[in-house]
């Protein structure tokens, strides 16, 4: 029974949190939105490369730290907490994919920060845009692609359900920026014509891995929302006492804490599944982790804003940045309801006739 991070892992997460703290996102996000600048923190990205965070799971030969998937989950959690305006999670995931092929050249570029990866693995459906592949070259339109505006590659799926890492640096790429709810990441429409790509095998397990990492990102964001609300509830007085002393606020925050800890418990099962790698466990764990974390990030952002009262409905309050981000993270990989339905398909309940 060892269902926890080690002290060393927790310390590592603290280091990353400190780095994100130095590049505090919220004021930047607001300033970029006002100035119409696309959301991406190049200095932070460079620092992440310099300190070998981008190669967290890669071997030192490739400029990495040689750590395991547990550390990837911690990095995702910290990125979520910090609203980090960089494509860290997608790039870390691409690192895992490139390790598996393996592609040493790309691994070096990735660790050095020269391969920014966007992720486009929405849940499959009639209306989901997919690309087609001919002779290993990818064509078609993808929409919307988070971070697609400035990514060097995109991890996406074709209509047959295979995953590809498509190079976005050639001539056959047209990008159109889309207006986004989320202020921390851009989105774009990508039109691809005969772009070179690496085959990553079936898309399902990559979507599941992405779901688990995104669950940690959601969890980090949810925790930050709760932390903000708790801090405000301790400092803000009404009726002669801190509002956090009133049960209406106190119990709301306790209930959020409970939901976050339960979601964290399911996310830990996701971390276990990431390490195990067995597709069946991965699928089940992804559904559990992602269903829990999607719901709690949305709720935590909404209720954190609410606890901030009038302060919550200002541009200056961090809560709305999370409310926006929570929706964007839900949108990118599918709602909790979709993941719950997937879970039932896997479980004792027979699928719909």
């Amino acid at each position, binding site marked *: 029974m060892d269902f926890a991070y080690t002290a060393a892992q927790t310390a590592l997460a603290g280091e990353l949190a400190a780095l994100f703290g130095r590049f505090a996102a919220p004021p930047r996000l607001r300033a970029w*939105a006002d100035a119409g600048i696309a959301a991406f923190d190049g200095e932070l990205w460079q620092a992440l490369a310099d300190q070998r965070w981008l190669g967290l799971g890669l071997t030192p030969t490739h400029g990495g730290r040689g750590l395991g998937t547990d550390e990837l989950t911690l990095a995702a959690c910290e990125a979520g907490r910090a609203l980090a305006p960089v494509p860290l999670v997608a790039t870390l995931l691409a690192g895992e994919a490139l390790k598996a092929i393996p592609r040493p050249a790309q691994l070096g570029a990735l660790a050095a920060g020269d391969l920014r990866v966007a992720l486009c693995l929405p849940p*499959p459906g009639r209306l989901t845009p997919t690309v087609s592949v001919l002779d290993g070259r990818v064509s078609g339109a993808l*929409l919307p692609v988070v971070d697609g505006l400035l990514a060097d590659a995109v991890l996406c799926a074709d209509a047959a359900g295979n995953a590809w890492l498509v190079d976005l640096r050639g001539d056959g790429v047209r990008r159109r920026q*889309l207006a986004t*709810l989320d202020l921390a990441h851009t989105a774009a429409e990508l039109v691809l014509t005969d772009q070179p790509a690496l085959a990553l095998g079936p898309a399902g397990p990559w979507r599941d891995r992405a779901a688990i990492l995104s669950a940690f990102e959601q969890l980090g964001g949810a925790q930050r929302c709760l932390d903000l609300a708790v801090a405000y509830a301790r400092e803000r007085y009404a009726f002669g006492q801190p509002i956090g002393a009133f049960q209406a606020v106190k119990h709301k925050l306790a209930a959020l804490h409970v939901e976050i800890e339960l979601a964290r418990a399911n996310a830990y099962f996701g971390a276990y599944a990431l390490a195990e790698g067995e597709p069946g466990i991965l699928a089940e764990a992804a559904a559990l982790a992602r269903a829990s974390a999607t719901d709690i990030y949305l709720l935590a952002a909404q209720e954190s804003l*609410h606890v901030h009262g009038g302060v919550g409905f200002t541009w200056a309050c961090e809560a709305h940045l999370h*409310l926006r981000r929570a929706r964007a993270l839900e949108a990118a990989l599918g709602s909790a309801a979709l993941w719950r339905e997937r879970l039932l398909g896997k479980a004792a309940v027979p699928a719909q006739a």
Partner: protein
Amino acid sequence: MDFRDSPDEAAFRRQARAWLEANAPLRDPHQVEPGVFENWPDAAQMQAARDWQRRKHDAGWAGVFWPPEYGGRGGTIMQQIIWNQEERRVLTPPAVLLMGQGHVGYTLLAHGTAEQKQRWLPPTLRGEYAWCQLFSEPGAGSDFAALACAARREGDHWRIRGEKIWISDGAYADVGFLVTRTDPDGPKHKGLTCFVVDMRAPGVTVRDVRHPNGGSHFSHVRFDDLRVPDADRVGAVDDGWRVALTTLMYERFFVGAWGSSGAFGGPQLRHLIELAGRCEVGGRPALQDDAVRQRLAAFTVRARAIEHMSYRVLTTVSQGGIPGPEGSIVKMEFARLSQEMTNLGLELMGPAAMLDGADAPLAGVFQAALLENPCMRIAGGTDEIQRTIIAERLLGLPQESHVPRDLPFRDLPRGGGWRPMA
């Protein structure tokens, strides 16, 4: 048990509708309406609003419930509500002059002197005064009675010093209805005094407070030794709490009556159903998913309940009564319902939910609502404040008291609990 107009009400409605349809185009009920917390109007829109007000006034439709001596129609409050419902059916300039004719106006009617009413009310009905309500402060939101903005008497004038925030219409208001603290040594509910202030006077600084949607709807107002003549004081010195409660009561009342206008729930529910017809869940049209259907049906049940609740409030009014905290239910529950409908809308959109504005489905109306809904649950009294009022005033539950942790056991207040069966 009938929510339809009485014969008198129906006659008045016909009359009102006839004038309105002759004077303004019909509103498209399917049109996406701008949110409550959009940017404030520009000068042209302000002028249009004043012109429309003047036109209503000259035709005898301004201040339906106000006495004729102040330019009103001298009707019933029920007629005022019918007028409001009918006015929503036509396309009018932004309703930025509402506050003066609404809760602030009613407060002046109830607490102003004859001279004050004569001075302020007729120009308000003519569209000459845009009002704002200067109540909340950075340190006094839910606990409104804790406000600190100080008024100090100097002969026949008062000197005002302090700040107010979350001021709707603050950016373009001509006059403001202000609550101040005049006795800091009394308990917080005592020692408040109300004034009408000139928002263009020296000593008044109005700044934007930006909304989560990036726009400006609210203002922050600072008073640096603003001089206000004692003649502009409303109600007795240190009796401002009672005066302000009138304002809050009417605010709650109009929100409660608003539910009957179809403005609550209807348009958003229509958008949601339209969206559910276009989106898919698990590869099928969302409208064929039982879970989505159940949520849509639950929203319908709730929207209709709020509408019917609003008829109950109106019945009280129609029978000459003044509704109590029941009116809050309409506001609170609509805000919660609206938030839930928004959440489903964004969930149904799938990846497109991350987009905004023109790039998003339905021109981003649900994305806009995402950032507005939380404010609806806070403005005009948070859910928590409303529940406390309902519990204490309607259910008779006790106020919180406090027992020191070190009280001797034998002095502990106690009572109730299990007793053997008789």
